[in-house]
């Protein structure tokens, strides 16, 4: 299986991707792809949200985008190690990063469609930020977000079984704690800084 196969199957057959990652982990390569995509996503999002490119906000949203997958993955890995699980850290981080990132990509595609609609076809036309924050148009994105969270939880449980060899309830508890800590840190970046 070539390296790129792990990307091809991550959405519809995530287990195949995880098996490939277990065989030949390559977080270095995967993280570079995620980083480049993050820059592209945040730049496009910035344009649709504000009709303008502002370096401070591109960096801030890219940090948020990175925090969303990097923090809970790292925190949950530490917790699994604390409870005595022995597994390959690189495989674990890469599998989780790829899972979360693929779902975030789907959400981003939906968000891009929303931005194009809002800025070009809607009446009245509104920048995406304006439409969501001031005119109640965030519900579709919330639904996509909830579906995304469910899909991510499904994948982290599979990763817990395949890579960590953890029981389902252990994965759920550890990921719930990791998610709460990460959400609070993301909140502090979003509200405490921005």
């Amino acid at each position, binding site marked *: 299986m070539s390296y790129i196969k792990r990307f091809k199957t991550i959405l519809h057959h995530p287990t195949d991707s995880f098996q490939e990652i277990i065989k030949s982990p390559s977080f270095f390569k995967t993280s570079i792809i995620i980083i480049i995509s993050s820059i592209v996503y945040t730049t496009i999002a910035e344009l649709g949200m*504000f009709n303008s490119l502002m370096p401070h906000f591109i*960096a801030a949203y890219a940090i948020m985008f*990175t925090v969303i997958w*990097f923090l809970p993955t790292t925190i949950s890995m530490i917790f699994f190690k604390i409870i005595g699980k022995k597994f390959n850290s690189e495989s674990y981080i890469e599998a989780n990063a790829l899972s979360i990132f693929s779902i975030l990509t789907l959400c981003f595609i939906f968000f891009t469609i929303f931005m194009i609609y809002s800025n070009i076809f809607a009446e009245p036309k509104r920048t995406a930020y304006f439409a969501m924050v001031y005119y109640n148009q965030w519900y579709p994105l919330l639904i996509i977000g909830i579906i995304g969270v469910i899909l991510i939880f499904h994948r982290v449980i599979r990763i817990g079984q395949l890579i960590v060899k953890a029981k389902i309830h252990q994965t759920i508890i550890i990921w719930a704690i990791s998610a709460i800590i990460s959400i609070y840190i993301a909140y502090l970046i979003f509200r405490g800084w921005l």
Partner: protein
Amino acid sequence: MKLNFFKPYIPTIIFIFILIAVMNITYVPYPNIIRFSESDYPNEYVPTMIVPGEYLKISKSFDKVWLGFIELKSEQEKIKIPDDFSPGWYNITLQTNGVNTTINNSIYITPISINDFTFIQITDFHTDCYDGLDLQERKNVFNLVNEIGPAFVVDTGDMTNYGLEKQYMYYKMIISELEMPLYTIPGNMETYSDPNLERYTHFLGPGNYYFYFGKILFVASAALHSPRSWGGFDSSQIKWVNETLSKDSDIKFLLNHIPIVAEEGRDYNFVPWGWKEGHFSQIEDGYEEIVKILTDKKVNVLSGHWHGYSNKFQYKGATFYNTPSVTRMSGIKEGPRFRLFQIQNNSIIYDKVLDVEKFYITHQYKSNQTQVKIIIRNEEGFFVPLNLHIKLSPSVPSYSINKGIIIKQSSGDIWIKYNAPIGESSIEVLPII
């Protein structure tokens, strides 16, 4: 071996460091340091309001002075505005050593008494990049402001969505229809695409200045941390605010977009460093110094920023008004809102938040603009003090009204003071024959 262990994580760690560096490089802790002092008045950005019969103080040296085209006599850097001067906007021309300097629209002769007046605080206007219904909704807000007829309007920031040129142009277009002076300060949104507030200064002038209405002092302060939604006062800003608030006055107001003291933190509630002595503040730097100044001088502070939040909070003698936004807010039923103040004999006797969609004024003109019926529908749940400005035919020398008080008549322009009760009421203006 150790390097190999860290190798997979190097790109992510470097990326995070680069992002933090970009955020720090693009962070401007204290934008817009332009601060007006006494020698900057009169100027075209901060109009001076004056009542006929009062003295206008001019700190610039001059030999002769004209208001509009009328030359006025000066008495030791002061000029007396004649009692018969018509209300409105005036250019002032100062002659020094034979050279004339004209400052456009720098003087506003107000028809409203300095002992009994209203003013409006609007905030968080959020003009977007597009024309259409959203822009029309904002025009309607200023149409109603014109109808209510306050002595002046203060806008406590976030007049644009991200400080873009097109948004300023739309905002300027909307405010051009305002009859009375408007005083603005920048909010955090203005710093989003304009971290040093150069665009704001170009379109709307300085961020730090002061003005008077009678003996009431208003100090405008731009204490922002660009482009963040938190604010702060550095030592020079604290010094300027302290000196400016120390000017002789009966009541003092400070205009600052970011809430300095608030009862709660809204969606910032879980940011631990926002909590200070049992209340919330979004001021990071200079918090203790500025609160001491405000409480010592018993200042009334007007803020916005939190959109859906309407609150009046008293703390150690100072009063902190947080006014809800003109822009709608997801999840909030009310329409565009603003706060109306009434000041009588140097006391604030009225401060209410009005919902634009609950107050309507219509005019029915008859007989070649020599009669008018003004119909007022007030669904706010409280009375609303109005200074109605009616433009009727100047061919009729004098008019009478069936309700309210005529405070001024000037060739067809009539100003009527009237407290609009809850429900529907009407005023008829008829010619005296």
